């Protein structure tokens, strides 16, 4: 162990050395043009590295804020796209005639019979009760609405006629209302995965709303508190999504395989339908939960099941392990549709 005297001696020597070398360096820099240039170049290089690193660190710590800003911007742009797509649809291509939608769904005043139904979301979302199997229910809904409003095909539906008394909100496109949200917690390693979302009842979230991204339908809201929502992830055996091959193709049921977070199976595609590997799978829109035409994944191998339908492997677009920003989507006509279903049964 060094003695105290030795330590002081070493420190003195080091201090003298540093002082003398610094003095000599300063003299060299001030008296030699080449040395001055070289030194300044070195200093600038060092400073640029330091500034670069500092900036990188600052950028890293501001990533969360930047991500949130981008997510908000993304949401705004997507809403514009959705509104445009909805306008195109109401132009006469979706079975709703030529009527335009201006139903002021953002007011939250419409009753939803699905409220409180969160105890069995899988049945609602995927089961025979909850899923819209074909377009006939839509037609029925339109007929009921026309009966209530006293309108006929081709008549414009306005706010007063719908009874909500407000114009279409900024978060509404067509018959869907969209709420941007962030996932607070998500599980991916179980057979029954879930997610906690940072928007709740006070933000307008209702049970049985869909959770989507631009690359897939990722879950269904099961229960809501004032500020948070509990959603069942698509990576859950209890959840299925009504999906369509291409934008105009056959529809089937997309279900998670349970093996990894990017593989699913599309069941119930009739065997006479030509299916090629690499075809894109979209949401069908027949469900009362998810809007149509959200890309879900691409097809892979197919298998004939019971000689009547194909079961097709699907590679999902969405990477659930990187999932963070989502959009909660609710069908503003869902209550009415469910009411209609109740009448028909």
């Amino acid at each position: 162990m060094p003695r105290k005297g030795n330590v002081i001696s070493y420190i003195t020597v080091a201090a003298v050395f540093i002082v003398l070398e610094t003095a000599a360096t300063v003299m060299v820099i001030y008296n030699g043009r080449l040395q001055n240039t070289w030194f300044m170049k070195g200093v600038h290089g060092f400073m640029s590295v330091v500034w670069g690193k500092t900036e990188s660190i600052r950028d890293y710590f501001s990533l969360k804020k930047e991500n949130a800003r981008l997510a908000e911007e993304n949401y705004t742009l997507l809403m514009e796209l959705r509104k445009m797509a909805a306008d195109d649809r109401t132009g006469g291509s979706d079975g709703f005639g030529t009527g335009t939608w201006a139903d002021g769904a953002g007011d939250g005043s419409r009753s939803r019979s699905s409220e409180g139904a969160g105890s069995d979301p899988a049945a609602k979302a995927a089961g025979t009760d909850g899923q819209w199997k074909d377009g006939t229910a839509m037609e029925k809904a339109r007929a009921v609405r026309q009966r209530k409003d006293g309108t006929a095909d081709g008549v414009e539906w306005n706010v007063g006629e719908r009874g909500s008394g407000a114009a279409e909100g900024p978060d509404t496109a067509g018959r869907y209302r969209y709420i941007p949200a962030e996932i607070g917690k998500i599980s991916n390693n179980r057979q029954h995965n879930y997610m906690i979302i940072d928007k709740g009842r006070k933000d307008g979230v209702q049970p049985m709303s869909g959770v989507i991204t631009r690359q897939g339908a990722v879950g269904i809201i099961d229960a809501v508190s004032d500020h948070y929502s509990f959603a069942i992830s698509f990576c859950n055996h209890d959840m299925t999504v009504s999906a369509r091959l291409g934008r105009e193709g056959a529809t089937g049921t997309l279900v998670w395989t349970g093996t990894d977070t990017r593989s699913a199976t599309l069941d119930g595609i009739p065997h006479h339908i030509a299916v090629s590997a690499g075809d894109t799978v979209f949401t069908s829109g027949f469900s009362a939960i998810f809007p149509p035409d959200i890309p879900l994944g691409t097809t892979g191998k197919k298998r004939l099941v019971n000689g009547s339908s194909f079961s097709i492997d699907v590679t999902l677009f969405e990477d659930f392990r990187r999932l963070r920003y989502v959009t909660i989507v609710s069908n503003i006509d869902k209550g009415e549709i469910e009411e209609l279903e109740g009448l028909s049964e």
Partner: protein
Amino acid sequence: MKTNRNIGLTYILMVIVQMFICNYFHFSMYVTLSMLPAMVLCIPLSVNTSLAMVIAFATGLATDVFSDAVLGLNAMSLVPVALARKYIIRTFIGEETVEREESFSFRKNGLGKVSASIALCELIFFAIYIIMDGAGTRPVWFNISRLCASMAASYILSLIAIHMLSSED
């Protein structure tokens, strides 16, 4: 036997000689002649490292002032030699010489050990000197060639310097 006072006077005289060498002996761009590292090596071991560094700094600065070199260049190169002086002597000449604060000489310690000490001092000195003098404008091969040529050329001068400053010879 030379006294410390004689050594001091000889040292100052040799600094003046070094100034002349710097001003008038330019053989080639590859060769820099300097006996300053050997002179610093010969500072008596009774002088502590801090003081030796100050002496080396003053020696280098004096040479810079009275020669056409960049001011501070010799001083900057010589201070590390003074810092490493005792370690070099301890490594090549022996622990006892440092502990007893004896001087070293060719006769007592042999040409090989003293030459190795000189070589290491010159390596430190010229490495710093050449790098700073070139200031990043010269290629590595040029700097290495200049280092080798300068060390070889200065070795003879260093032997003379050690012979004159050694109190034993």
